[in-house]
């Protein structure tokens, strides 16, 4: 008899994404697996080029294929296979039960369309019967919800009349327009001023609480992770290095890369100002090192790490690590 586990909201298994370029094939995502359960906030962290944004795009199949080559052993949302889904049904999922927030609200909004029209479009595309006026009214309502003052007036303005923070609020309004079950936020605060970042994070948290949507938060900022996430997926070189509950991860990381990431975080509880960045550079993704991709920068690396690629092993307690020697890892 098999134990019947509840199906997660989002399940990604063995995701590979490749881009053929002038310098050879870039394996941007190399066998990523993760799950997102209803209502939880999962943070995906990693350095630039770790493949976290590409993973996020792959969920709703937003990468252009070709040139991108995407394959996965499983890619399901609410148990439905996103890979085999016909275009029409896929479009019903995009912007409906799954909302997306992009990194740069300056370029992610259409410059020649009013903010109101762009939000209303998100509503309109998922209405049973098209009702333009209802969609417009809903757009104003959403703008108010995300804290844009004077929403009726602002809805008639164009993106260049909005500040960066206001644009990202509009972006969030678009993502939550149809009461989603899953929000994918791709570096939602990276392009913003530091003072605005906190406000936008608050808003995402509020939106998440209001809609009850599960949230995938793509970020390179561990501060954001600590503040918001329930669970963390650490990515490096297109692979998952470690997954853990947020407290476990910060208290007792089980992968040397996570240790390195945490060491580069400025801490309030110590006096030292010195950050401790990981020595070396991320690997060239068109020619990754054999074995564990982190071994050239890893203080624990030994012969096995150079030869054998570690699998993502279950350590119990909802923790997994892709290290050959997880017991030896200490902060």
């Amino acid at each position, binding site marked *: 008899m098999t134990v019947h586990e509840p199906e997660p909201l989002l399940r990604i298994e063995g995701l590979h994404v490749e881009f053929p370029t002038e310098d050879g094939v870039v394996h941007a995502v190399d066998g990523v697996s993760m799950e997102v359960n209803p209502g939880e906030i999962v943070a995906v962290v990693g350095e630039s080029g770790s493949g976290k944004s590409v993973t996020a795009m792959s969920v*709703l199949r*937003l990468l252009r294929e070709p040139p991108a080559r995407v394959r996965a052993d499983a890619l399901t949302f609410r148990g439905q296979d996103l890979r085999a889904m016909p275009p029409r049904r896929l479009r019903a*999922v995009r*912007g409906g039960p799954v*909302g997306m927030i992009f990194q740069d609200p300056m370029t992610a*909004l259409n410059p020649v369309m009013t903010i109101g029209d762009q939000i209303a*479009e998100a509503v309109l*595309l998922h209405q049973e019967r098209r009702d333009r006026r209802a969609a417009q009214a809903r757009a104003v309502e959403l703008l108010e919800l995300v804290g844009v003052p004077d929403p009726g007036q602002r809805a008639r303005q164009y993106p*260049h009349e909005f500040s960066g923070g206001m644009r990202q609020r509009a972006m969030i309004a*678009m993502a939550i327009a149809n009461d989603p079950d899953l929000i994918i936020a791709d570096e939602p605060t990276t392009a913003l001023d530091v003072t605005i970042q906190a406000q936008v994070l608050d808003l995402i948290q509020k939106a998440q609480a209001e809609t009850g949507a599960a949230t995938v938060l793509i970020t390179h900022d561990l501060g954001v992770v600590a503040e918001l996430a329930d669970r963390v997926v650490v990515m490096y070189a297109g692979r998952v290095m470690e997954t853990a509950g947020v407290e476990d991860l910060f208290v007792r990381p089980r992968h040397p890369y996570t240790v390195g990431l945490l060491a580069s975080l400025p801490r309030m509880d110590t006096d030292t100002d010195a950050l401790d960045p990981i020595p070396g550079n991320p690997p060239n993704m068109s020619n990754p090192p054999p074995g564990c991709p982190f071994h050239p920068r890893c203080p624990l690396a030994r012969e096995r790490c150079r030869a054998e690629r570690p699998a993502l092993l279950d350590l119990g307690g909802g923790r997994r690590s892709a290290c050959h020697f997880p017991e030896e890892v200490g902060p």
Partner: protein
Amino acid sequence: MGAYLARRLMTNVLVFFLITIAIFWLVHKTPGDPIAMRIPPDQLNSGTAEYIAQRRHELGLDRPIVVQYWFWLVNAVQGDLGYSLLNGRPVTELLAERIGPTVELMLVGLLISLLIAFPLGILAARRRNSAWDYGTAVVSLGSVSIPVFFVALIGIYLFSLKLQLLPASGISDPTNPGLLDTLSHLVLPAVILGFANSGTYLRYVRSSMITELNADYVRTAEAKGASPRRVVVRHALRNSLIPVLTVIATNMGQLLGGAVVIEQVFAWPGMGQLAVSSVFQQDYSVIVGFALLVAILVLLSNLLADVLYTLVDPRVRLR
């Protein structure tokens, strides 16, 4: 926006002055007595020597060259372009009856070239490096490479002489008037003019569509659940229109150049045909009038480009 347009208007007026100086310099170089171009021929022939001397004085022709230019310009701007050396009719009148057919040919030709350029350009942009894209590149290169008069001759050979489908010359058949007759005379010249200009627009539509389809906001629209069709029509097209509209307006001169050649081949009674025949009859006053008209037309198109630009792009409009 007002300041921007005002500045553009100023430049265009300045350029117009420079052009009129160039034209006047050319006029000044023409052989013969300039008075012949400026007063009706019956007066020239029957008028007394005193009368002609008086007219010469009134037209400023006995004054220094700079004053002559000023008199000429003031008269020209008021619509007095002198008289044809060939038949004595006022140049303004001659041009006025020819401008309609030329504008008709140009507008229909423009419409056809856009009907070729937009679908093919969008298709090529959406399927980059596909057979469609390469096919489109060949069409556009052919359109800019093959001289329009040769395409016109082939068109006449095939459709008028061999297949006997369409008339080979003229704008209408007086013995058989009607809409069908008008259209049948228009089809061949307009389609050929349209084809000849489509290549230029096609390249711009394709490249600007590629830029826009790669923009982040397109991915946002897709993430909202927009269909590929909606992404193109509602999002990318509107943005790609900004540079393309500018090109269409600034290309009006080239369109006119094509129309001049086509009018000659198809005996289309427009101002291009008038100008070319005036060259051979050395009817200088008509040529000068034509030159002024072309300059105004081209500069107005440039100005139109600026206005369109500010209208389509809200970032400029609201500045």
